[in-house]
C-alpha cells in the first residue's frame, strides 16, 4: 500500500465528528417568520431602529436581489438553496445587554467553551473581542480602553445609531449593494457585525477581533463588517468563526468592507472554522462571502490573511482596490479541504494608482474527496505605471481522490507593470513522512508538521496570539480532516 493511500485511510478513519465546536447552545431565541420578502426586510430594519436612508438602501438591495441569479461560475456544486425556508433573523430573546454583566450566562459559557473569554479580566491580554451570535452582537470587550484613544469598536447596529454619519458615508462604498448576488442579499438582510473606526494618526492600541457563531437551526447569518482607518491610522483585526454540527446546510453570506486613507494600514486576519459537514458531505456551512478593501490613500496598505479550514463550501475572494499611489495590497491564504468540502477562493488585486504593489501567497491543501480552487485576478489599469504583482500559488494533495486547481487571471493594461506568477502542485512525499516517523513522530504528527511547514509563509503573517491557534487548528483539522 502506498503511503499516500495509507495516509488517506488514516485520515479517513479519524472521523470528522471530532469537530470540537459542534455543540449547540440552548437559549430562548427570538426569530422572525421564515422566508424572505419586503416585510422581513422592514422588520429587521425596524427591530434595529434604523434611519430611513438605511431602510431605503436595504429595500433597493432586496429589489435588485430578486432580479439577480445565483452565480455558478465557481468550481463548486450544491443543490439549489431554498431561500424561502431560511430564517433571516434570530437573536437571543433577552433585551440587548448594556454591559458584560447583563449578558446571558449561557452565552458567556458558550464563548468560554470556544476558548473566547468575554470576561475582560480573563480575556487574552491586549485583544478586544466582539462576539456575534446568530444575528446579533452579544458583547464587545475593552470598549472604554479603546475609546480613550478615539477608536470606535462596536456592533454595526449600534454604529448606525451612534455614528450614523460614518456608516452612511462608508457603508456600501467598497462593496455596493448590487455588487453580486450574495452581497445584495446581505445588504438587504444584514443584522449585525462589527464596526471599527480608527481616527487620524492613531495606532489601535490592541488587536481587535470578532467571533462569529451560528447557533440557530435553518438560520442564515449575514454579518456586515466595516473598518475605516483614517490618515496614518493602523489596526489589526481578526475574525474567527464556528458553528454547531447540523445535518442541513446553513448559509453564511457576509460582507466586509475596509477603507484605508493616506498612509493607513489595515491588517485583516480570518481563521474560518465553520462546521465543514460530516465525512459523507452531509451538512456544513455554505460560506459565500464578499470581502474587499479600498486603499484610497497614498501609500496605504491592506493585508488579508486567511486560514480557511471549515465550511462545506467556501466562496470568497478578499480583494484590494489599489487606488492611492504607492498603495500595497497583500493576500496570504491557507485553504484546507477534506472529505467533500469545496473551496473556491482567491483574491482580486486591482491596480489603479501608480507604483502600487500586490503580493499573493496562496497555499491550498486538499484531502479526501475535496476540491480546492485558487481563483485570482490581477488587473493593472492604464494609469498604474510601475505597478508590481507577485503571485505564488502552491497546492498540496493528500490522497488521489481530491482536486487542486489554479485559475489565475492576469489583465495588464500598462506596459511598465510587472506581474509574476508562480505555481506548484505537490504531494506529501513518502520520504518526508518516513523521515519524520523514523524520528518517532506518528504519521498524523508527521503530516501535521509537513503541512504546517507548507503553510509557514502564510501563518507567519497572522498576529502572534493567533498563529499558534491556527497551527493547532490545522493539526486538528488534519486529525479529523487532514487537509
Amino acid at each position: 500500500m502506498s503511503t499516500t493511500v495509507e495516509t488517506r485511510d488514516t485520515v479517513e478513519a479519524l472521523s470528522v465528528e471530532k469537530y470540537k465546536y459542534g455543540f449547540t447552545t440552548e437559549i430562548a431565541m427570538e426569530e422572525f417568520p421564515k422566508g424572505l420578502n419586503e416585510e422581513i426586510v422592514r422588520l429587521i430594519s425596524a427591530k434595529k431602529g434604523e434611519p430611513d436612508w438605511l431602510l431605503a438602501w436595504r429595500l433597493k438591495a432586496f429589489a435588485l436581489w430578486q432580479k439577480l441569479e445565483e452565480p455558478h461560475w465557481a468550481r463548486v456544486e450544491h443543490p439549489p438553496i431554498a431561500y424561502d425556508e431560511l430564517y433571516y433573523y434570530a437573536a437571543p430573546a433577552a433585551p440587548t445587554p448594556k454591559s458584560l454583566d447583563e449578558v446571558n450566562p449561557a452565552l458567556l459559557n458558550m464563548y468560554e467553551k470556544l476558548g473566547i473569554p468575554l470576561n475582560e479580566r480573563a480575556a487574552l491580554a491586549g485583544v478586544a473581542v466582539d462576539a456575534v451570535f446568530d444575528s446579533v452582537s452579544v458583547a464587545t470587550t475593552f470598549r472604554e480602553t479603546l475609546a480613550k484613544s478615539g477608536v470606535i469598536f462596536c456592533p454595526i447596529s449600534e454604529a448606525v445609531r451612534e455614528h450614523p454619519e460614518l456608516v452612511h458615508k462608508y457603508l456600501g462604498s467598497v462593496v455596493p449593494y448590487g455588487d453580486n448576488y450574495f452581497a445584495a442579499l446581505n445588504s438587504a438582510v444584514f443584522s449585525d457585525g462589527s464596526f471599527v473606526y480608527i481616527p487620524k494618526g492613531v495606532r489601535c492600541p490592541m488587536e481587535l477581533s470578532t467571533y462569529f457563531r451560528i447557533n440557530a437551526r435553518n438560520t442564515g447569518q449575514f454579518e456586515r463588517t466595516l473598518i475605516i482607518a483614517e490618515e496614518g491610522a493602523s489596526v489589526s483585526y481578526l475574525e474567527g468563526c464556528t458553528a454547531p454540527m447540523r445535518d442541513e446546510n446553513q448559509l453564511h453570506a457576509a460582507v466586509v468592507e475596509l477603507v484605508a486613507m493616506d498612509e493607513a494600514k489595515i491588517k485583516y486576519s480570518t481563521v474560518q472554522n465553520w462546521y465543514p459537514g460530516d465525512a459523507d458531505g452531509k451538512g456544513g456551512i455554505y460560506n459565500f462571502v464578499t470581502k474587499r478593501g479600498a486603499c484610497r490613500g497614498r501609500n496605504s496598505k491592506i493585508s488579508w490573511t486567511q486560514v480557511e479550514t471549515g465550511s462545506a463550501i467556501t466562496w470568497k475572494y478578499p480583494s484590494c482596490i489599489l487606488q492611492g499611489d504607492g498603495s500595497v495590497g497583500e493576500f496570504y491564504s491557507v485553504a484546507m479541504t477534506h472529505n467533500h468540502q469545496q473551496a473556491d477562493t482567491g483574491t482580486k488585486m486591482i491596480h489603479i494608482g501608480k507604483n502600487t504593489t500586490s503580493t499573493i501567497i496562496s497555499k491550498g491543501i486538499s484531502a479526501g474527496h475535496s476540491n480546492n480552487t485558487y481563483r485570482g485576478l490581477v488587473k493593472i489599469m492604464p494609469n498604474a505605471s510601475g505597478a508590481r504583482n507577485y503571485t505564488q500559488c502552491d497546492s498540496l494533495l493528500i490522497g488521489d481522490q481530491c482536486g487542486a486547481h489554479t485559475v489565475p487571471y492576469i489583465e495588464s493594461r500598462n506596459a511598465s507593470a510587472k506581474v509574476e506568477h508562480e505555481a506548484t502542485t505537490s504531494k506529501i512525499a513518502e520520504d518526508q513522512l518516513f523521515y519524520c516517523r523514523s524520528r518517532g513522530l506518528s504519521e498524523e504528527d508527521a503530516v501535521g508538521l509537513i503541512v504546517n511547514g507548507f503553510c509557514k509563509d502564510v501563518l507567519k503573517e497572522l498576529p502572534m496570539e493567533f498563529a499558534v491557534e491556527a497551527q493547532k487548528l490545522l493539526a486538528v483539522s488534519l486529525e479529523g480532516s487532514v487537509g
Partner: protein
Amino acid sequence: MLEIKNLSARIGDKEILRGVNLSVPDGEIHAIMGPNGAGKSTLSYVLSGREGYEVTGGEAIYNGQDILALTPEARAAAGIFLAFQYPVELPGVGNANFLRTALNAVRRARGEAELDAVAFLKLARTALKNLSMQDDMLKRNVNVGFSGGEKKRNEVLQMALLRPGLAILDETDSGLDIDALKIVAEGVNALRSPVFSALVITHYQRLLDYIVPDRVHVLAAGKIVRSGGPELALELEARGYAGLEAA
C-alpha cells in the same frame, strides 16, 4: 542486542536481501561494507520500517522484541535510529521545532517527561557545540539548503539528542571533509556505552580509523559474505571486493 536471522526482503518483485544473518551485541559497533547496490541501504530501511520494503522471510530481534512488525515510530521509540544516506528536506519546518517534536515524541513513548522550549534549547546548544555546529542550524528549515556535509552533521545532531540504543549510520561519512569526519566519529564514540550498539555502513576504511569497529561485515548481493575484525576493512581497502560475491 540486535539479531538478524535469515532476513530476506524485496522491493516490488526485485529480491534485494537474500538471507542476511548478523548479530550485534550490546556495546559493540559493527561496520558493514560492500559494493554499490549490494543492499546496505535496503537493510537499513528494512530495520527502520520503511514502506515498500517487503520482508519475505527471516526476522530481526532487538532487545528481545521482533521489530519487523512495528511502525517506524514505534521502532524509534524502542531506540532505533537511522542516519540517512540521503537526509530528507522538510521545507518550512524549522530544525529546532523538528528536533524538539521528535525528541518529545520519543520521550513520551519512553515514559519520560517532555522538554519545554527552554530545556530543549539548552540541550540542543550543548549538542551543537559538541559537534562544532553553528547555532543558526536550529533556525534553518530541516536540511533545506544545507550542504552535503551539513546534512550529515544534522543527522548526527539528531542522533546525539535522541540517544538511541541502536544507531544505523548509512554512509554518514560520505561527503564529509576530514575535520567533519573526526567530529562525526567523536559524536558516535561519545555514545559508546554498554547499552549502545551501532551498525556503521561505509565505503571507506578511513572512517574506521576513528570509529574502531568490533566487527566488520561484507554485504554483497544481499548476503553477509564475510565477517572479521577491523583488519578486514584494511584488506578490503587493499584488494577490493573481487571474489567475495561468489563466497
